[in-house]
Structure formats: C-alpha cells, structure tokens
C-alpha cells in the first residue's frame, strides 16, 4: 500500500506513530491522525460576510482608478490576492477558495460571463461583487468549495 492520505485533525489530538512495512520490506514510521468523524464544517461559510468584504475591497482599490492597459493586470492580481487573504482570514474551516477578478474597459464592447460547476450543492457556494466607474467595470467572483 503506497502512500496514505493524512487527515488533518482540528480537535488537537496528538497523532499516532505507526510502524508499517512497505513493499521493499523496510520499516518506516508513519504518522496517522485519528478520524474526527465530522461531516460538516465547524464554521460554515457565510456568503453575506464575504460579499460585503469583497465589495469593500473593490471600492477601496478602484475608487480613483482609471482604466489603463498597462497597470490593470497587476491591479487585478493585487485585488484577487487581497480578496483571497480576506476570505481565508474569515476563518471558515475546511474550505478551498477560488477568486477571479475581471476588469473590462468600457469601449463600445460587451462582455458575457458564464459559469457552471459540478460540486456539492449543500456545502459549496459562490458570490460575486461588481464595481463600476466611467471607464471600466470590475467583477469579482469568489467560489468556496468544501474539502475534508
């Protein structure tokens, strides 16, 4: 049996060191965590909190910004980093996050954004936040997926 996936343990129980033999008959000490038997996250994801936070971050960073082809990519990257850090700080446990930030110039063009997913409907969710100025529209999409 090659490789066992280790469980991270939130209850703070110490891991158990197990001696096991692998195929080449060498003994290796393997660390094994106990099952928590928890199917739901302790701190469930609350989308209203994240939505407000994302909206605030967008407003802060883009209030006085004008669309500029050279600086917008780095602006996008920094906004998404900030949103991701804020989401992680909120402390909802057992969630993976994905943040997409789109900045589109208002120049006689139109944009359509469509998303579909195959995930756990009861535990995974998404939120979107929009910010509009004279020269551009910014859209932030945040998906939170449960992982245990």
């Amino acid at each position, binding site marked *: 049996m090659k490789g*066992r996936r280790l469980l991270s343990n939130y209850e703070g129980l110490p891991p158990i060191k197990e001696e096991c033999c692998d195929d080449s008959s060498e003994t290796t000490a393997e660390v094994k965590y106990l099952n928590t038997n928890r199917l739901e996250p302790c701190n469930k994801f609350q989308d209203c909190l994240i939505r407000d936070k994302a909206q605030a971050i967008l407003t802060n960073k883009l209030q006085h910004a004008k669309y500029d082809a050279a600086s917008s990519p780095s602006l996008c990257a920094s906004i998404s980093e900030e949103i991701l850090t804020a989401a992680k700080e909120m402390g909802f446990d057992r969630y993976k996050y994905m943040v997409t930030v789109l900045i589109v110039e208002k120049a006689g063009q139109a944009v359509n954004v469509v998303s579909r997913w195959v995930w756990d409907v009861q535990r995974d969710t998404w939120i979107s936040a929009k910010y509009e100025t004279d020269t551009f529209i910014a859209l932030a*999409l945040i998906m939170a997926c449960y992982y245990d």
Partner: protein
Amino acid sequence: MDDFQAGEETSFVVDEVSNIIKEAIESAIGGNVYQHNKVNQWTTSVVEQSLSQLTKLGKPFKYIGTCTVRWENKTMYCIVSAFGLAI
C-alpha cells in the same frame, strides 16, 4: 476518512483538459461571427459541454467552468477557464 490511492495516480492533466475545452468551443461556436441573440446559448453550451466531458473522465474532482465572451462588432473573444478541485 482514509483514502487509499489506487494503482493509477489521479491528477489534473492540463493537456487533456485543454483539448476537451477546445473541442467544446469549436463544436459550439466554430467559425461563426457574433450574433447577439445566439451568444447566450453559445456560452452556456460551451461550458456545459466541457463540464460533461470533464466529468466523464471519472476523476475525483469537483469542476468549475467559466466562459467569458467579449464581443465587438463581429469579432468575438472567448476565454474558457476550468478549475478542478481534488476531493
């Protein structure tokens, strides 16, 4: 929730997924010019087709697919991103 890895490594193979998405775009949009009334249909069909092909691979992933279409007169740019989250 112990998981014993099967003989085959299940990983997200970028090339395979790229091909699937390209085929989905080509079959849905092909060489069409932009038509306003059809664009909704095209975007949804691109994403749904690529997602269904990805799930057919049978790997233990959750998938999220996003299609962004930008159009201007008759030209269209279509950006499809697919994310796979291991379970």
